[in-house]
């Protein structure tokens, strides 16, 4: 019993320290700034952005694609690790689920920022056309949000019950909320059975849902004629890219939470090692898709493709492109292939690098293609030949990122970030040397 007490003490949500408060406040401030900027944008129109008739999608869409991609981590880690019954997943899965939830919610919100007429949102439902990939997106994103929430929620039930008990003395109010959310969880066999079955179903469901989400997202681009988008590869490319972004984000967040909540005993170097291997695998696959995506048009050298690729390889996007490829993929692969590179701190930096690289990668998918239309760009202001986001766009984008972090922070604050019940069970199991059934 003693062991489980320390366990609960260690893992129960704690109040933030000073750093935590500063962090939260900063996020809130950035978010508010973003909201103000957005209101300004609604009033003045998107003229406050630097988008134009050629670069008609800017970092809003890139950011949206990034969020969608990152949210894939839920599907990847949760489902794949859960179904393959990997023992090391326990302390990591919930963080992944939280990231997924935060990102997919923010993805749903950011896409609205890009809408010219957010007031007509309802038209999507009133006049929705099944033929349009956007409607597919409209359908799949809420679905995915719900699945993500459920996948987060179901395994939480036992923990919430524990927390209700745990906080019943110190924070009765909190305890009451936990109680409400725990749905009278007692841990009876019947409840357990239902819970396990539900988790299993959701875990299976989230894989196709995640795949469809990424694919639909890819089809937003690949169903169009534009050079650089019109590629049969896009769906698989996005899926592999999403795994990289998601796992990268996961590594980063895990490191921060481990540090902040002092969970070194639960999230050990062993976990980082495994995560590192996982990340390097995803990176390798993504690199492979990248090679295919760029080498084939380069080799067949169709006229428009060549111009487009030259822009990326040696034109104005070259620094960014090579940063994304080398910094976002090659360096992580090299570092993570070594055992020393899979220690927590280097992993954190690599994770950060991967996330930043992934973000810019989305920018490179969206913008250069738009600036390379079939008919030449003529008769428009010089500034329309290029695109770089305006202050408004940056503020709003950062605010969305801050909001995503805020959601994560909020969930970390109020939820046990490492499943208490399961950890306890596992400890029990290793003691008695019995295999644990999922």
């Amino acid at each position, binding site marked *: 019993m003693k062991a489980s007490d320390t366990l609960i003490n260690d893992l129960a949500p704690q109040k933030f320290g000073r750093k935590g408060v500063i962090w939260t406040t900063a996020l809130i401030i950035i978010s508010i700034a973003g909201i103000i900027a957005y209101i300004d944008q609604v009033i003045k129109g998107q003229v406050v952005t630097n988008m134009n008739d050629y670069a008609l999608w800017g970092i809003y869409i890139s950011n949206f694609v990034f969020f969608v991609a990152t949210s894939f981590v839920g599907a990847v880690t949760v489902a794949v690790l859960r179904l393959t019954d990997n023992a090391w997943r326990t302390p990591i899965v919930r963080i992944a689920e939280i990231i997924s939830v935060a990102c997919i919610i923010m993805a749903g919100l950011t896409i609205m920022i890009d809408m010219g007429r957010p007031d007509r949102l309802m038209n999507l439902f009133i006049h929705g056309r099944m033929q349009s990939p956007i409607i597919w997106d409209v359908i799949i994103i809420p679905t995915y949000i719900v699945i993500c929430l459920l996948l987060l929620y179901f395994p939480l039930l036992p923990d919430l019950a524990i927390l209700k008990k745990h906080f019943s003395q110190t924070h009765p109010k909190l305890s009451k909320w936990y109680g409400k959310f725990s749905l009278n969880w007692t841990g009876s066999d019947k409840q357990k059975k239902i819970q396990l079955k539900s988790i299993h179903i959701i875990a299976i469901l989230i894989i196709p849902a995640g795949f469809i989400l990424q694919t639909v997202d890819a089809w937003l681009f690949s169903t169009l004629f534009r050079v650089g988008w019109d590629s049969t590869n896009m769906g698989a490319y996005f899926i592999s890219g999403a795994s990289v972004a998601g796992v990268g984000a996961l590594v980063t967040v895990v490191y921060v939470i481990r540090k902040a909540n002092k969970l070194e005993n639960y999230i050990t170097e062993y976990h980082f090692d495994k995560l590192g291997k996982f990340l390097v695998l995803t990176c390798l696959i993504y690199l492979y898709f990248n090679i295919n995506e760029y080498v084939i048009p380069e080799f067949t050298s169709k*006229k428009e*493709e060549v111009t487009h690729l030259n822009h990326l390889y040696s034109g104005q996007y070259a620094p960014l492109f090579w940063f994304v490829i080398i910094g976002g993929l090659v360096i992580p692969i090299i570092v993570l292939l070594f055992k020393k590179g899979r220690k927590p701190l280097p992993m954190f930096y690599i994770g950060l690098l991967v996330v930043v690289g992934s973000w810019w990668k989305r920018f490179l998918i969206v913008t250069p293609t738009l600036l390379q239309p079939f008919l030449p760009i003529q008769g428009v202001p010089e500034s329309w030949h290029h695109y770089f986001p305006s202050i408004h766009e940056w503020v709003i984008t950062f605010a969305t990122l801050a909001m995503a972090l805020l959601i994560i922070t909020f969930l970390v604050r109020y939820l046990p970030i490492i499943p208490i019940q399961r950890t306890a069970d596992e400890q029990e199991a290793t003691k008695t040397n019995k295999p644990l059934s999922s």
Partner: protein
Amino acid sequence: MANKKTENGSENRRNFLRLGLMSSVSAVAGASLISNLATGEEKKASGEKVRVLTPDGKMVEVDAESINNYPEAVITPEESRKGIPDKKFVMVIDLSKCKNARKCVEGCQKAHKLDDHQEFMKVQLMQNNEEGSPYWLPKPCFHCDEPPCVTVCPTGATFKRDDGIVLIDNERCIGCKFCITSCPYSARTFNWGHKEKFDDKSQPYSPETQVPAAEGTVMKCDFCPDMLRQGKLPYCASSCPMGVIYFGDKNEDIVTNGTETVSFSQLIKDRGGYRHLEHLGTKPNVYYLPAVNRQFPVERGFDVDEEILDRYKDVPIVKEFKEQGKL
């Protein structure tokens, strides 16, 4: 007037002379021909016969090669890989003049000793869209500046020369057919089976003539470099009765169809020249002039063999014509 004119249409002769005079190189080539004849050296046989009248009044059929001699015999394989120095050959095909007379196809087939069905030059009936007007498209090899066929060849059997011509060395071709699949213009053909004429070794093989062909190798239009070396037009251009095919050197900026010689750039500019499937980025060296104000209605082109006509049965306009009873 002291000079006497022969009766035969002076117009004809005038044209003939004009051309002769316009040509600087051919005069030299002609001279060499004479000398060859006089010495009677370097004679080879081939299947082709020419009918002449001897001074003793006999009509004699002699082997063409025995009284004709191409200088390609002295072209070394290295030279044939390099090309004619400082040239860049282009062809311009005026679609408004083509009436599917198929003389280019026949001329080409005869010169390259091709079978009836093996065509380096194909005349295709094209219709870009349902409303678009149908037109006859003579289609040689495009001798692209970014030739996908050359890129994929594993042995360098097909190669691009400095003068822009893409040739095949059938002594090096291993017959993997990759070049055929990579050519977006379907310009290449394959020697599927064995034929007797492949054994005729009387003429030494050169990539510039592609004669004799070899079984299991790839062939295609070659812009007739053997003729170019003599300063003459490729066979398709010289045999076209309508003057559809202009040929020349892009560096010189001069193209000719045999009867008129014009500036290449001016012709392209005035007549809206374009290249086929430009967006593939292959950069062909064959330009087309759109079929604007065409000289013959497209129906005139159906005045060919029933069998050839049958090729175009899938083109929508042919079906339409058939319904209207025009065919």
